[in-house]
């Protein structure tokens, strides 16, 4: 915890770094601090939300800003009140988030818990990722997210490490009534059906969204397995960097190993102030892919995969051509 006894209203650069490590952001108003509250996946209990409101009224100006990464931020807190703010938030179990060069609170959509499109349990995964990795030092900020399906509302392709839910469908032939609704449901031209014949899936086009499964009223098109597409090296900001797609259908139980190995690789190869996307550009994507393969095995994407419409189409037109060729690892 940072030293909050200091009552001076002048916030030095060093002091500002210390504060940011603890999730306290100096405002342009001298001596005023924004307190960033931890809310993995943007999930907050009503009790914590009430406590945040109470603290915002008592120590701030009754204003809370929801950060772009889903953290409720209490504005206009006096520097000398930080200890009291932290203690009072803790009464409701509300912890403080973080800024600076470290693993940030993981963001997530609603996921399969309550969102009809959700394929993966993004909320639980975001909470667990935050529990395991939050605050770990990295060469630069390290942002992660869980999107529950290929719609990718959380923008996995703009994260240092993004996970996006996907499903592998399977046809139970004896249940098929040849109604063709799965073919109509597919928006990626990945299912075809000749008159009176079973639907056939085009593996080069299927993005794993599960629309065909939702359309099937007869439990014929069903879920074979669910997992995560993994994107690494993305960021937004002044100089955006699109992420590299590196793995597909990675199961839940491998997710935390993927995070572990990615952080470790970034620490080993990254220089201070360098996001992992830049490290990959400098060191080479295959170095990272070799490290990742130790964890994901056959889920690792190959150069052949990247040539398929299925992977080319998840980026802006033409962008896939700019990726360096993936070597055999």
């Amino acid at each position: 915890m940072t030293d909050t006894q200091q009552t001076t209203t002048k916030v030095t650069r060093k002091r500002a770094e210390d504060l940011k490590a603890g999730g306290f952001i100096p405002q342009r108003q001298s001596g005023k601090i924004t307190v960033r509250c931890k809310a993995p996946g943007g999930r907050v209990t009503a009790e914590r939300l009430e406590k945040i409101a109470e603290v915002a009224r008592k120590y701030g100006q009754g204003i809370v800003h929801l950060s772009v990464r889903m953290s409720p931020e209490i504005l206009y807190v006096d520097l000398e009140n930080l200890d009291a703010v932290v203690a009072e938030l803790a009464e409701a179990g509300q912890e403080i988030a973080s800024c600076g060069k470290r693993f940030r609170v993981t963001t997530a959509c609603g996921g399969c818990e309550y969102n009809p499109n959700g394929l993966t349990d993004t909320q639980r995964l975001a909470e667990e990722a935050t529990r395991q990795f939050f605050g770990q030092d990295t060469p630069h900020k390290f942002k992660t997210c869980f999107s529950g399906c290929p719609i990718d509302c959380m923008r996995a392709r703009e994260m240092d490490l993004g996970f996006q839910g996907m499903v592998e469908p399977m046809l139970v032939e004896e249940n098929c009534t040849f109604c063709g609704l799965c073919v109509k449901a597919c928006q990626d031209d990945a299912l075809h059906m000749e008159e009176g014949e079973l639907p056939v899936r085009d593996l080069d086009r299927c993005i794993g969204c599960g629309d065909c499964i939702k359309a099937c009223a007869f439990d014929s098109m069903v879920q074979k397995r669910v997992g995560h597409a993994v994107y690494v090296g993305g960021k937004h900001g002044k100089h955006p960097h699109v992420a590299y797609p590196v793995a597909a259908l990675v199961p839940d139980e491998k997710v935390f190993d993927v995070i572990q190995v990615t952080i470790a690789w970034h620490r080993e190869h990254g220089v201070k102030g360098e996001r992992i996307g830049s490290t990959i550009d400098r060191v080479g994507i295959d170095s990272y892919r070799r490290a990742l393969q130790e964890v994901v095995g056959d889920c690792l994407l190959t150069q052949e995969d990247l040539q398929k419409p299925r992977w080319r189409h998840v980026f802006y037109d033409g962008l896939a051509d700019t990726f360096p060729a993936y070597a055999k690892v």
Partner: protein
Amino acid sequence: MEQKPDAATDVTPDLKIDLRGTPCPMNWVEAKLQLEKMEPGQLLEMILDDGDPIRNVPRTIKADGHKVVRAKSLEDGFVLVVERGPNRPPRR
């Protein structure tokens, strides 16, 4: 009034509604209201638009405890014949 088996689905529905032009989720709300007036086991034929309803309606029918007994794609939209499920205790 006696109805004839539908040429497209070869079953005789007790009631038909054409929900083309009614967007999600109002199409399902209307279908649900109809199903609630019917007896368990009766058949409701509904015609729906292509697009979102394909991804939403079959899934919701199953989740609400009814059963799709026929599905047929049309030139413009699609048909579902739904068997009204058993009465379920009201949700808390």
